[in-house]
Structure formats: structure tokens, C-alpha cells
């Protein structure tokens, strides 16, 4: 994906890189200054030591033979190649001997170390410069920084120690600063070069790494755009590198899966509402219309109205159940959990259904241990269990000679299994069994039984709310509906 420069600068990666680069460069510049000033002062110190040694040697010569020896030694040393600077002048500053032809005015007037580097010319160099048309004597005081560049053009820089001899003559011993300055220039150049390389490297890394990151982000935004376009089955690319981009994509994918599930649920709910509420609503309307159309006795009207009320009540029940399932499944139910005695709840529900079972000729018995406390919602568990027991009684009635429904609660492994087993016809087909907990699914054989087809779906949603499962297992004969609750702690 080609990006213009402003577009690149708008990316986070580019901004971060630029910031890092600036900080890095700042540190590098500071380092350059520190190193150059450190090395300069070190070299100046060395130079001063050398001068001190010279002065000591000259002092000894002076002590040995007075001025004539001193002058001789100075002249001898002046002629050596790469010699230091020597100058002996009379009390008025008139140069008598040495290898300095001229120097900045005022330098020899003050005794002691020269406060600043000064410019000078050796014997012989002045003529050369003049022959080349260069200027010489009028030099300006120079600082160490720019003297390196002006070297050769405006004479040399040096530092020196100025002494007054006992006879008021002036002696200057100095050393050219050319070497330290060259050294400093070398360090500076190499550091600048390193800085430049660093900058270039930074730009390259920024370009490649940043672009790679940009590409990943672009692919994520492209995928998002496709998904926003309506393709909820689309997923963000996961490269398998396990990096933060992958983690981001994985999380977003999980989120998308959840959204898709909720969306699917919502779609199913609206479809089901359309189907399962429209039918009875139409019937309701038709009944009212038919009652209005003919001439009827008062009792007929009353009957029609009672039928209408009964049908509306069923509609409301169905509606409530759909709403509850959707809320529980979507996870935005406001229901809370608290410690519930599961065993007591089971006993309650069995006791509630016992007379109904007896009337239907079904033996309902329960094997329940002592108290088992779980974290749950008593109302919801009671409702789920009552739906399941209700079903079991309905489907075992008349199925065998001795219809029976057994309710058992036991702990198996890390789960509490609450099973309702009947000995009716069961659901022999595996696919049918799997489908039985879907909303409004009423298997062919159960069409004749009253019910909304939501009982098991609601039980399943309630189990999901409790982080549990609802399984339908063949009981041979019959069906076993198992509610599995996870056991937490050491209960």
C-alpha cells in the first residue's frame, strides 16, 4: 500500500519513530560535545606539562651559564624539527631570539600562562604566506572551535608560558595547538559521521519495521471494513507469530464470534417471534373476527372472549420465555447468584410435581443427598428443573406399562450432575436429541403435546448462565436429561 509522506506521518509508528530518533540524536549531540571538550582539555593539560618540562630544562641551563647558555640552548632547540615555540625578548618586548617571527600583540606583556590560544608565525612561514598572497599578522583572537578550520590560512594557534628573567628580559615557551585541534577535529568528524549513520539507520529501521507494522494494521483495518460491510463471518488475519498483533486479532476475533453469536440469536429470536407469535396472533384475530361476523348467543361471546384470554395468556408466556432465554444467552440478564441448596431445590421441585405425576400414573422418585450448596440462582434452577421434570412426566405418560421418572443428584468428578431420567420412548435419533434444546423445536412425536417448545431451550440457557451444561442422553429406554453444574471450591 503506497502512502504519501503526510499519510505516513499520521501513523503512530512514524510518530513514535520520529520521537525516538529526536531523543537519540539529542543524546548523541550531547555525547559529541562532552567527548570533544573532554579530549581538548586533556590535550591542553598534556601540552602544559610538556611546556613546564621545557621551562625546567631551560631554567637549569640558565642557572648553569646565565643568559648566553640559555640563548644557545634556545637557539639549538628552536632548530629541531617540530620544535616547541621559543622566544626571548628584551624588557620592551623586542624579539631577540627564538623561532617565533611575530605573534599577537600583548601576549608577552603578561607573565604566566596565556589565557587563550594566540596566533603566531614562525620564521620562514610568513614569507611563504606572503608569497601565496595570504595575510598574516593581523589575526583576530580565535577560539578553539573554529581555529581548526582557519588553520594554515591565518597562522597557527598556540598556548605558551611567559616568564620574566631576572634581568627583566622576557622568555616565552609555547606549543603549537595544531595537533590537539586536529585530534579534536577528527573525533568530531567521526562522531558526526556516526550520528549521521545512526540517523540513516533509524530511518531505514523506521521504514522497514514501521512499514511492516503498518501493513499488519492495514490488513486488520481492511478485514474490519469487510466485516463492517456486513460479512460477520469474516475474521481478522492471525499470522501465528504470537506477537501483540496476533493477540489483538485473536481478541477481536473472539469478540466478533460473540457478536456473530448474539446476532444469530437475535435473528433467530425475531424469526421465531415472527413464526411462533404470528400464528397464535392470527388465530386470535380470526376468532374475534368470526365471533363478530355471525349472530351469536351471549354465552358464545363469553366463550369466545375466554378463549381469547387463554390464548393471550399463552402468548404472554411464550413471549416471556423468549425474552428470558435471549437475556440469559446474551449474558445481559440482571439476575444474580447466591448460595443455593441444590438438594433442597430438587426436593422442592419433585414435591411440587409429585401430585401431577401421580395423577398421570407416573412414578416420580428422587435420590438426593444431604445439602449441597452451589453458587446459583434458586429461581432459575427451579424453573429449569421443573421444565425438565414436566417434560419427563409428559413423555413417559402412557409410554410403558409402568412409567417412571427418576431424579438423581450426585457429584461426579468436578461436576454436580442433576439427572432426570424417564423410561418413555426417548429420542432415538442423535441429531434429533441435539436439536431438542433449540428454540421452538418440537420433535414430530411431541407435536401433539401442549407446550411452547421453549422449555428445554430455557433450561439450556439457564445452565449456560450457571456456567454449566445441559445434555440429553439416551437412557435405553427413555431419555436422560442431565444438568451439569461446575463445582467450585471445596464443597
Amino acid at each position: 500500500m503506497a502512502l504519501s509522506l503526510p499519510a505516513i506521518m499520521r501513523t503512530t509508528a512514524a510518530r513514535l519513530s520520529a520521537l525516538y530518533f529526536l531523543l537519540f540524536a539529542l543524546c548523541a549531540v550531547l555525547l559529541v560535545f562532552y567527548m570533544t571538550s573532554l579530549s581538548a582539555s586533556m590535550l591542553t593539560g598534556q601540552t602544559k606539562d610538556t611546556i613546564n618540562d621545557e621551562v625546567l630544562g631551560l631554567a637549569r641551563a640558565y642557572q648553569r651559564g646565565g643568559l648566553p647558555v640559555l640563548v644557545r640552548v634556545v637557539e639549538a632547540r628552536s632548530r629541531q624539527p617540530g620544535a616547541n615555540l621559543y622566544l626571548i625578548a628584551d624588557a620592551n618586548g623586542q624579539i631577540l631570539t627564538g623561532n617565533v617571527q611575530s605573534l599577537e600583540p600583548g601576549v608577552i606583556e603578561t607573565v604566566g600562562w596565556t589565557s587563550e590560544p594566540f596566533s603566531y608565525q614562525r620564521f620562514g612561514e610568513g614569507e611563504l604566506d606572503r608569497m601565496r598572497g595570504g595575510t598574516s599578522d593581523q589575526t583576530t583572537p580565535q577560539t578553539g572551535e573554529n581555529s581548526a578550520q582557519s588553520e594554515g590560512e591565518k597562522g597557527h594557534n598556540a598556548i605558551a608560558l611567559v616568564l620574566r628573567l631576572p634581568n627583566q628580559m622576557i622568555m616565552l615557551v609555547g606549543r603549537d595547538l595544531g595537533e590537539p585541534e586536529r585530534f579534536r577535529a577528527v573525533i568530531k568528524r567521526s562522531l558526526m559521521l556516526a550520528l549521521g549513520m545512526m540517523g540513516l539507520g533509524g530511518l531505514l529501521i523506521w521504514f522497514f519495521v514501521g512499514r511492516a507494522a503498518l501493513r499488519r494494521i492495514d490488513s486488520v483495518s481492511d478485514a474490519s471494513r469487510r466485516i463492517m460491510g456486513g460479512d460477520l463471518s469474516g475474521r481478522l488475519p492471525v499470522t501465528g507469530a504470537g506477537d501483540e498483533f496476533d493477540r489483538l486479532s485473536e481478541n477481536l476475533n473472539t469478540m466478533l464470534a460473540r457478536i456473530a453469536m448474539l446476532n444469530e440469536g437475535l435473528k433467530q429470536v425475531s424469526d421465531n417471534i415472527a413464526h411462533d407469535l404470528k400464528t397464535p396472533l392470527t388465530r386470535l384475530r380470526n376468532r374475534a373476527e368470526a365471533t363478530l361476523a355471525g349472530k351469536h348467543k351471549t354465552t358464545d361471546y363469553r366463550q369466545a372472549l375466554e378463549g381469547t384470554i387463554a390464548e393471550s395468556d399463552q402468548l404472554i408466556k411464550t413471549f416471556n420465555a423468549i425474552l428470558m432465554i435471549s437475556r440469559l444467552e446474551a449474558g445481559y440478564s440482571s439476575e444474580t447468584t447466591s448460595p443455593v441448596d441444590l438438594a433442597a431445590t430438587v426436593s422442592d421441585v419433585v414435591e411440587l410435581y409429585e401430585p401431577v405425576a401421580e395423577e398421570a400414573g407416573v412414578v416420580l422418585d428422587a435420590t438426593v443427598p444431604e445439602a449441597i450448596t452451589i453458587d446459583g440462582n434458586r429461581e432459575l434452577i427451579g424453573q429449569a428443573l421443573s421444565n425438565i421434570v414436566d417434560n419427563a412426566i409428559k413423555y413417559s405418560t402412557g409410554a410403558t406399562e409402568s412409567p417412571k421418572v427418576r431424579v438423581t443428584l450426585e457429584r461426579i468428578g468436578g461436576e454436580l450432575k442433576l439427572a432426570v431420567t424417564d423410561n418413555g420412548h426417548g429420542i432415538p435419533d442423535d441429531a434429533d436429541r441435539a436439536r431438542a434444546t433449540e428454540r421452538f423445536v418440537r420433535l414430530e412425536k411431541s407435536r401433539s403435546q401442549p407446550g411452547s417448545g421453549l422449555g428445554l431451550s430455557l433450561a439450556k440457557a439457564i445452565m449456560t448462565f450457571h456456567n454449566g451444561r445441559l445434555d440429553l442422553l439416551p437412557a435405553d429406554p427413555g431419555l436422560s436429561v442431565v444438568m451439569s453444574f461446575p463445582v467450585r471450591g471445596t464443597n
Partner: protein
Amino acid sequence: MAAPQSSGEIAYNGSMKILVMEDDREAADYLQKAFAEAGHTAHVAGDGETGFALADAGDYDVMVIDRLMPRRDGLSVIAALRSRGNTTPVLILSALGEVDDRVTGLRAGGDDYLTKPYAFSELLARVEVLNRRAGARESETIYRVGDLELDRLSHSVKRAGREITLQPREFRLLEYLMRHAGQVVTRTMLLENVWDYHFDPQTNVIDVHVSRLRGKIEKGFDKPILHTIRGAGYMLKGG
């Protein structure tokens, strides 16, 4: 939602003055008319502020308060009334039907909670049970209805002097029916108060429990005492 046809004759136990706070004009009018048909007087307030002013000034037997109202919501009206020492029984009407919503409503000072949509027969039965003039029978230890007698301390039941043996749950069922003798008690009220469940069982399990109880307290006696009120529920009434 029709007014129960039979409540006018049987369930009527004195006229009540009812305050209805309901912002839906049509529903409020319907309630006013239906309460009037049942022999009660109902006043209607269309919003929370008006309702609070009426409740604070008037002497009502029962209040029916919608949870969601303009200007002031039902729960805050109830809380304000309770803090002013008003103890008039309140039935909360709400479209929010989860158990926790009910708990919130009752905690705010409501005495009963009914989820919309509801049957008027259910509302009427609950309002009549709430009626503070119906008298608190909580403190009585022996309930008597006709020749039926229930001793809450010794857990014994007698009819015409004859001992009747009941299962614990049957005893609680009869106890509730006797506490509200002469009043219509609906199936959901029984499930709530005797079993402490608020859901709708698919099969009407309560009917079977009641008919079992009826068998025990009526079999061998000439007069029926536990009546079925069509379209509403049950009522215990001595002859």
C-alpha cells in the same frame, strides 16, 4: 384481561379506596372501571408527582403504582411515602420481570410486585389480599373458617372436631388459604407464597395440589369449603 365474573359476588369483602398511579391513560381508565365493577373506588394519578401528592393527602387502603412514570418514578414515590410514615400497602406494576427486579421493588417498600402484562383478576386478588382493612391475621395462632380449624402452633387441622392429617406442604397451603379466607387467591400467589417460586409452571401443578387438599378437607363432609373461582383462582369460605 377481563374482570373476573365471579369476584363481584364472592370475593367482595368490603369496598376499598384504591389509588392507581399509571401514566398510560387507557390502562388507567380500564383499571378504574374494573375496580369500580368489583365494588371498589379507584383514583388515578397520571404521574409520580401527582400520585405522591394524592397519596400523601388521601387515606387509601391500597396503592397500585407503576414503576416507570413521568416526573417521578414509582420506586422513588414509594420510598418518599415510606419515609413520611405512610404505611399504605403498595402493589408495584412493572414491565421488568426478572426476579432481581422484583427484589429491588420489594426492597424499596413495595408489598407485592406484578409484572406486565397481567390479568386483572390477578391484580384484583392481590390488591384485596393487600387491603389493610382485611385485618392482619399474622398474629393469630388459630385460624377458623366455618367448621374448619387450623392451629398454627401445634400444626393440627380439624374440621367439625375431626382431626385431618396433612403433609407439611398441604398444611402451608391451607394456612395461606385460611389466612386469606373470603378472598380470591390465584395460582401464582400460591406458588409464590407456599413454594416461594415466581415462575409459571408449564402444567398447572398448583391445581393438583389444591384438589388433593380439597379431597382431605372436604371428603366426608357435606359442605364444600374450598371453592374454585373460574378464571381467577381459589377461595376458602365457610358456609
